[in-house]
């Protein structure tokens, strides 16, 4: 849903013979709703603005040029911090992907900057020869090559858009703090919805299978089994997925271990323990085989779920992820496999803890 209403546009700025759309610096309710939807992965893969040159305020040939990605959230973040300022914004075609992810793929990159600057006739629009590129774009941008190809010097701006005003006011100087990527509670929490939505389909399918399989037993198939075994099994599976996806990111710094798979396994043991204690204290019938099965499946699922959060984190390396996957995938797979077999056996041998 590339934005076609242009509610974020505020007239045009003339640059010689051309007209450049002016960006509003105030975000509307519609912008905020769009951001919220994107955070829930609704239309997120196509939430973009048209690439090209834009204006903020009434820029002159001396005004700074800020480079951004064409993910609408990136442009929104940028324009919202530029209230009361005059600047040019060069939006690259990153296929609607944010700066850092696009830089990793190279779509936010040297060639696209050169191409977009030339297409916009930037050397005629501004009198200086400096492009302010977000620091997180650097994995895709070779500053010396940009300079060689189109004559513009790249000045790496701060990591966070909100530091841009201070960066500009300091004569394009960033403090060390502005150059550090953080991964605070809020940074982690906003990622939870996408984690939930991404895994939801697989989790719901498996939960549905557990629900139906729960009816299998010595009397072939019974609705009592679906209700008594299938329903709590599906519930526990989904609860584990939701808890690992939500509590994992929130508790990340406090969960022991450095590998995300280890952190997830610890969280899983806590979840399994809590579920077991709850079952005992409430007097729910629980087959011994099933107790052991869930003691294996819950930590395995939690470990796998949090391991998949490495991609959303801001500090994991590919080498580290490969190492922890090599070590943990076999363990996760074995635990889940043995757990599943025990669970199936438990359908036919339902002896165990009874109220």
């Amino acid at each position, binding site marked *: 849903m590339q934005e076609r209403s242009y509610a974020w546009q505020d007239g045009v700025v003339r640059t010689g013979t051309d007209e450049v759309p002016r960006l509003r610096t105030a975000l509307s309710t519609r912008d905020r709703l769009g951001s919220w939807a994107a955070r829930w992965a609704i239309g997120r893969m196509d939430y973009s603005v048209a690439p090209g040159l834009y204006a903020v305020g009434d820029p002159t040939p001396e005004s700074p040029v800020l480079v951004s990605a064409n993910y609408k959230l990136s442009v929104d973040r940028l324009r919202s911090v530029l209230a009361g300022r005059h600047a040019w914004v060069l939006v690259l075609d990153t296929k609607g992907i944010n700066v850092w992810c696009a830089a990793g793929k190279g779509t936010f990159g040297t060639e696209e900057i050169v191409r977009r600057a030339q297409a916009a006739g930037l050397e005629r629009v501004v009198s200086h020869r400096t492009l302010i590129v977000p620091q997180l774009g650097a994995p895709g941008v070779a500053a010396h090559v940009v300079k060689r190809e189109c004559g513009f010097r790249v000045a790496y701006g701060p990591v966070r858009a909100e530091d841009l005003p201070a960066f500009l006011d300091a004569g394009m100087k960033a403090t060390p703090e502005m150059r550090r990527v953080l991964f605070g509670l809020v940074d982690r929490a906003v990622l939870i919805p996408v984690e939930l939505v991404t895994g939801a389909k697989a989790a719901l399918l498996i939960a549905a299978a557990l629900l139906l399989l729960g009816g299998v037993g010595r009397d072939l198939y019974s609705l009592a089994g679906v209700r008594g075994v299938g329903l709590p099994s599906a519930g526990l599976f989904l609860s584990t997925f939701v808890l690992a996806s939500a509590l994992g990111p929130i508790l990340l710094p406090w969960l022991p271990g450095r590998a995300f798979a280890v952190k997830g396994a610890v969280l899983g043991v806590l979840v399994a323990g809590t579920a077991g204690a709850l079952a005992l204290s409430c007097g729910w019938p629980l087959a011994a085989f099933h107790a052991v099965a869930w003691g294996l499946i819950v930590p395995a699922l939690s470990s796998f779920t949090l391991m*998949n959060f490495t991609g959303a984190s801001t500090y994991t390396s590919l080498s580290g992820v490969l190492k922890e996957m090599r070590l943990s995938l076999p363990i996760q797979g074995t635990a889940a496999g043995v757990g599943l077999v025990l669970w199936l056996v438990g359908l036919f041998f339902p002896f165990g803890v009874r109220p």
Partner: protein
Amino acid sequence: MRYLANVVTLEYDAGLCTGCTNCTLVCPHAVFRMEDKRAALVDRNACMECGACARNCEPGAIKVRAGVGCAAGVINGWLAGSGPSCDCSDGSSCC
């Protein structure tokens, strides 16, 4: 928060450094610091292999196998029979 120690592929040859300071500007984890007009590798284990330093090092003093530390991307790569790819632009939703 710190990730696994002694795993990254980052290599730095201080002899090739020209003192441009680019690596200290682009690194999001302060892996490099300027010392005596040359870059010094001060926190190798904080490296996330994003590749920004190497790409912006004109004399080629820095080498790293750049990639995204994304388990889902690695699995996607295995399933597709290619290398690790956190390719979110093809309709699948990750990163």
